[in-house]
């Protein structure tokens, strides 16, 4: 097997003005890229940047990122009830959402940059101005422009307000604005990007993943993932309905084990088993897209790390997936290194992010350097 570097969705990466990263250039991404570095250096921010670029800045993804970090501000809806909307200023480096200091994410060669910028209220469309004109002055309104490949869309944003002027803000209209726009714009095709966070996937998300691959070749990938941990897993099924009338109800994953007459809940087998199964399912759901995995080491025993990464590298190659993951773990990095050497022809790249004054820089390791580091216990994190 052999990957062409140019076939990757993002063969390299440039980020400017996004969250904690003022400027970062990564000269080479792999089919699978493992990011290391100290806490707070920006590893997860790189994953977020890839998600935002893949989604071409669609507001639902921005909303999800900001909601996950509780970057929300209170507003009042038409019934004077509080609800929370994203604080888009939190996307900008130093929370400095000033015109002329945009976020730029894209390949280093340029040409496919996604740009997110604040623009003066005067740049709002007549329709957007109409939303505010009766109750707010222009000083209260902030517009965010998202541009990609010469096309642009405007989002309206606003500072935190708890007074009655916010009451004109329609919750229904807000969600409509979030979903509409360029969701069906063929000029802005998204690249699908699944994500696994540091914790366990919810049952509903596991079930959704399973529904997408049940009875397909991709289903086998998730079963094989489980069998990395033990070969006594025979079959998997998702049972239950979507209604949760009582705690514990709802859809859940069951596993049939050898020598057991009754299936057992997946999650009863432990966090590591659930995590590996989720990774297999996420890979099975990511064909032709991205998969980002935050804190990839979680729940996986050090002895299994090479096999885990072997599975990820092979699946990424076979399904045209570009994977980016983060870790703090030596065992994870060493396991990744061994797998990257074993699976020839599939680019496994380790990159450590480190502070260089106020800037962040990327230190890239080739597979040969990784192998030497793993064998000789040379620090790479």
């Amino acid at each position: 097997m052999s990957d062409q570097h140019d076939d990757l969705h993002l063969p390299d990466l440039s980020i400017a003005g996004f969250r904690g990263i003022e400027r970062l250039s990564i000269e080479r991404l792999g089919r699978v890229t493992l990011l290391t570095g100290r806490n707070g250096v920006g590893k997860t921010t790189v994953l977020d940047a890839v998600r935002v670029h893949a989604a071409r800045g669609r507001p639902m993804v921005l909303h999800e990122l900001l909601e996950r970090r509780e970057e929300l501000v209170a507003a009042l809806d038409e019934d004077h009830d509080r609800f929370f909307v994203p604080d888009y200023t939190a996307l900008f480096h130093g929370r400095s959402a000033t015109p002329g200091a945009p976020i730029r994410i894209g390949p280093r060669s340029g040409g496919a940059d996604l740009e997110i910028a604040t623009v003066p209220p005067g740049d709002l469309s007549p329709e957007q101005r109409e939303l505010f004109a009766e109750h707010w002055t222009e000083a209260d309104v902030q517009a965010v422009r998202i541009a990609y490949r010469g096309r642009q869309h405007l989002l309206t944003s606003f500072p935190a307000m708890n007074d009655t002027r916010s009451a004109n803000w329609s919750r229904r209209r807000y969600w409509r604005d979030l979903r509409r726009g360029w969701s069906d714009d063929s000029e802005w095709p998204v690249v699908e990007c699944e994500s696994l966070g540091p914790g366990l996937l919810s049952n509903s998300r596991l079930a959704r993943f399973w529904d997408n691959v049940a009875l397909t070749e991709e289903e086998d990938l998730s079963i094989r993932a489980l069998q990395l941990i033990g070969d006594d897993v025979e079959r998997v099924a998702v049972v239950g309905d979507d209604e949760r009338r009582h705690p514990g109800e709802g859809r859940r994953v069951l596993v049939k084990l050898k020598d057991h007459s009754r299936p057992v809940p997946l999650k009863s087998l432990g966090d590591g088993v659930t995590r590996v199964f989720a990774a297999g399912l996420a890979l099975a759901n990511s064909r032709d897209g991205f998969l980002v995995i935050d804190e990839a080491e979680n729940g996986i025993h050090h002895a299994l790390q090479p096999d885990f990464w072997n599975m990820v590298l092979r699946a990424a190659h076979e399904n045209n997936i570009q994977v980016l993951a983060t870790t703090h773990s030596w065992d994870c990095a060493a396991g990744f290194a061994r797998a990257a050497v074993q699976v020839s022809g599939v680019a496994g790249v380790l990159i450590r992010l480190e502070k260089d004054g106020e800037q962040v820089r990327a230190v890239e390791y080739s597979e040969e350097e990784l192998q030497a580091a793993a064998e000789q216990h040379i620090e790479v994190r």
Partner: protein
Amino acid sequence: MAGSNHPRVLLVEGVDDKHVVRHVRDHQDQPDMPAFDIRDKDGITNLISAIGPEIKAPGRLAVGILADATGA
């Protein structure tokens, strides 16, 4: 488990080199000489392959190399 991550390291080919260098270093009366770690790489092949990752190790300030010109 990664080894210790000293900011200054000297890479040597073998255990004999390490002992000699350590002995010399520890008997120098040069209080201003910065501390450094001596790493026995178990052969020139390993030493050469380690140069890249040793230079790139986090917090690394200096990498020295002691290799025998007539070695294999």
